[in-house]
């Protein structure tokens, strides 16, 4: 695997996530030993599906692991009392 090529492909994915409609600037893309890890939190299952499609297209041919969580939409069970 050409290291510089991998670096540019990761940068390309992050650029596309920000600029090409998915608007996912909070997603991290990192080269780990032997694979690319994509992780973060998105607001809906539709956003996650869209994200996974882009990742598959941009990183085609590379070993990829994804860890994409959904935001939690429950009310809190207690306040924080500030002093």
């Amino acid at each position, binding site marked *: 695997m050409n290291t510089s090529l991998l670096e540019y492909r990761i940068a390309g994915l992050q650029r596309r996530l920000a600029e090409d409609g998915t608007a996912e600037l909070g997603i991290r893309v990192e080269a780990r030993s032997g694979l690319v890890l994509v992780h973060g939190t998105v607001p809906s299952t*539709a956003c996650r599906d869209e994200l996974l499609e882009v990742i598959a297209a941009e990183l085609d041919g590379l070993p990829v692991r994804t860890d994409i969580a959904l935001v939690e939409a429950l009310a809190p069970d207690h306040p*924080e009392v*500030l002093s």
Partner: protein
Amino acid sequence: MTAPESAAGAAADTGAGTAVRIAAVGDIHMGEESRGLLRPAYETLSGCADVLLLAGDLTRHGTADEARVVADEIAGLPVPVVAVLGNHDHHGDRPDEIAAILRASGAAVLEGTSTVVQAGPYRLGIAGSKGFGGGFAGRCGSDFGEAEMKSFIRYSRRLADGLRDALTEVADCDVRVALTHFSPVADTLAGEPPEIYPFLGSYLLAEAVDDAGADLAVHGHAHAGTERGMTGGGVLVRNVAQPVIRRAFAVYELHPRAARQAAPA
């Protein structure tokens, strides 16, 4: 969904009338696909908060359609809603239209401005600005060089000055909160790559908060950051980006200065 009701029940009545209870969340990034997602939790606010603060990035792409989803989500809530916009809300180059849609739903949308909310016997002053980047003291950009660089820093400074002026407007309130999208401190960015800190906030915001005074500074923007921090002058900072707080909103109870001073040592 039943969990929000039971969760709010646990928080209900704590601090009501004796503290100012501030619910806050940022970075909800709503679009048509997330319509209705937060409403069940928001409808529990009357039991646990006096106000809901929205710390920017309310939409995904800054479109009017997305803003209408947010407007529907917050319309008619049992507590006042106060918002600032974020960078996503500017992406469609129509922030004024986004703000107008939110205002039509009853929200106050701040940018270098302030509003006062009655919280039981207390007056809560909220000063807001989106804020901008530039970095933190000793590791920040300067108003020097290319026109684009000067423009970047001057914009950040102008918004921080607006926050300072807005906080001064509400100096007579019992409790004051600074509401921004970008972070005033590096503390709450821990977890983000340090290389991108200058794109996540500016010390100019913290300087404005410390100059004018506040009881709490609330921001969003840093999804991988941490919740808790403090300005150099000792003002508590909370990063309420939804991926950070992992709830529909967080609630902070503040005891007004007069009540604190009257309390026995």
